[in-house]
């Protein structure tokens, strides 16, 4: 589904990712771990197409297409979803209305019928229930005044509604208390299937207790210094990141 080959990218002239390769197949869950500043979030932003991040080398092939040449909104329509570490607040945009717009953008792209507010409401109610989100969040403005935890739930709500093929969740666990983490993880597990893939970006092993990864990659100073199966996460939990530094 996704082939990342020797990807190099940076921000405002400084290279942050210095050659990353990854191969992700449908049905797989990949965890990307690493200390702060290792390039985890940069990778997520590059995959989503953030205009401030510059790709300086390598390639990303998504279902046979050169992803780096595709606009962010087209990537979304092709099934890539990014769960933001810091979801932006947009006062004046009704959350439910926004979710319906996003849903319908996907529908139109796939040649399907748009849903009116009433029909969409059924989907929204079901998904919000799954994430134990209070009803009031549908009437509130997009992330406006949401607590950290509610913002993250709102990201997963969008993921549940958009049903992406590839979801990149950037530190979705940060700012969540243990109850919220459980609810969010349960939600992600329900969305997960043999047809979609998941990249979990996290600093802590805690999330991986709830969402079991197939592979764990450790990122440090812009490169993957170690890859392994889920036991690697436990090792990191016990020993920290210090024993893993790039050898160059």
């Amino acid at each position: 589904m996704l082939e990342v080959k020797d990807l190099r990218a940076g921000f405002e002239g400084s290279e942050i990712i210095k050659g990353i390769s990854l191969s992700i197949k449908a049905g797989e869950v990949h965890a990307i771990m690493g200390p702060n500043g290792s390039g985890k979030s940069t990778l997520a932003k590059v995959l989503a197409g953030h205009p401030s991040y510059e790709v300086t080398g390598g390639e990303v092939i998504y279902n046979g297409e050169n992803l780096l040449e595709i606009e962010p909104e087209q990537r979304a329509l092709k099934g890539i979803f990014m769960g933001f570490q810091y979801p932006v607040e947009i006062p004046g945009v009704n959350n439910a209305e926004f979710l319906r717009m996003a849903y319908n953008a996907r529908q139109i792209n796939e040649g399907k019928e748009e849903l009116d507010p009433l029909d969409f409401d059924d989907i929204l109610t079901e998904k919000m229930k799954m994430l134990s989100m209070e009803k009031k969040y549908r009437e509130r403005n997009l992330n406006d005044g949401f607590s950290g935890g509610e913002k993250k739930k709102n990201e997963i709500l969008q993921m549940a509604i958009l049903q992406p093929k590839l979801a990149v969740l950037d530190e979705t666990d940060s700012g969540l208390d243990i109850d919220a983490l459980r609810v969010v993880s349960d939600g992600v597990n329900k969305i997960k299937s043999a047809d979609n893939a998941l990249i979990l970006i996290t600093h802590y092993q805690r999330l991986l207790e709830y969402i079991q990864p197939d592979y764990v990659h450790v990122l440090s100073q812009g490169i993957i210094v170690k890859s392994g199966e889920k036991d690697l996460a436990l090792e990191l939990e016990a020993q920290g990141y210090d024993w893993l530094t790039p050898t160059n």
Partner: protein
Amino acid sequence: MTTTLVDASDQAESALLNLHKKFMSGNRPPEALVPLNEAAIQRFELLKFPHRKHEMYTFVNTKELVSTVFNLPGETVVSKDFIKSHVYPECESSYLVVVDGILNEDLSDNSAIQSSINLVPLKDAVDQPEIKEYLADTIEKENDVFSAINTAFISQGTLIDVAAKKQVEAPLQILHVSTGSASGNVTSHPRILVRLGELAEFKMIVKYVGVQGNYFVNSVMDILVGEQAGVTFSQVQEDATDAWHYSKTRVQQGRNSRVKAVNAFFGNKITRHHFEAHLKDVGAELLLNSVSILNDAEQVHHFVRIHHEAPHTNSTQNFKNIVNDKSRSSVDGTVIVNQGAQQIFSDQLINNLMLSDNAHADNKPNLMIFADDVKCTHGATVGQLDENQLFYLKTRGLSEKVAKELLTKSFAESIVQTIDFPGVVDYLENTLLKKLEA
């Protein structure tokens, strides 16, 4: 060059004095109001029309307005259908129509709240010492020449009196209609005074419209809010595009009183709104929000002075202006904290969204603090749409065009949503916000 300017301004001043003479002899304001008319025209002679660098008109070019010759409006019939189209659903039986500054009872219907409020013509209201003193005092202290002109030309004016402990359920709409003129220019001077007794609650919608253009509406509204009383109001400025709108809202707040004002401006040749608030006693709270959406060469200018005159008073302001094409907006806002007014909170935020390189937005947020234990913040932003918001929406599959439209609308919508009257919110969403689609 200088002499020419002085001459022009002298000419304009004598033209106004002549118009005033004509008004005093022709319109014959009631005897009880004549002392006010005369004191105010004297105030005008002292203040004079603002010169180019006048501190109250830094961002407003008054040259064209001042040099225009105005007449007093004649009698024009305004149709009931026209009125109906401008009355909000929540005010179907609670609206007053003021045509060119004169209350028109035939066109008004305030049956729903007749028993809750007292409408007193200003000529009778000045018999009350409190009103008389208030008006005399404001004339003496008036530093805005256009408000002085308003008082000089009052021929009627209305006091809306809400008795102590009265809670008026339905909002009252005041519809200011300027009839305008097919040729030449006319000017009118509406004057409303609102007084809330102790513990009274009142809601009000003030709307300005024009039947046709070529007019200058120069309006003043005074709101006196008693102890523990609360007033919520919205002003909607939707005059003819080919017209000038100057207005002043002067608020005086007593102990623990609450004022919430959310105003919306469509703009025209020049709209200038002067908001002056005096938080005179402990615990007074003021919220002032405003939104303007301007296209073509439309202008809206705000001049705001908030006086914290007592400890534990709060004021919060948020202005949002969207300027497109060659339009102009400005916010000149100062919060003044008097000596001894400790423990006050004040926040002023001005946000401007520029949709064109030729549009113009001036901001002058200012604080004058003479107390030491206060929390005051202010800020102003001028910019295009937020890159991160735009990216966020695109990652959800919204096209650049749709995302930009949504963000532009939401910028204004975030103020519109703070209006407490659903009919006004609906209306603005279908009119003011539609200006963004042009």
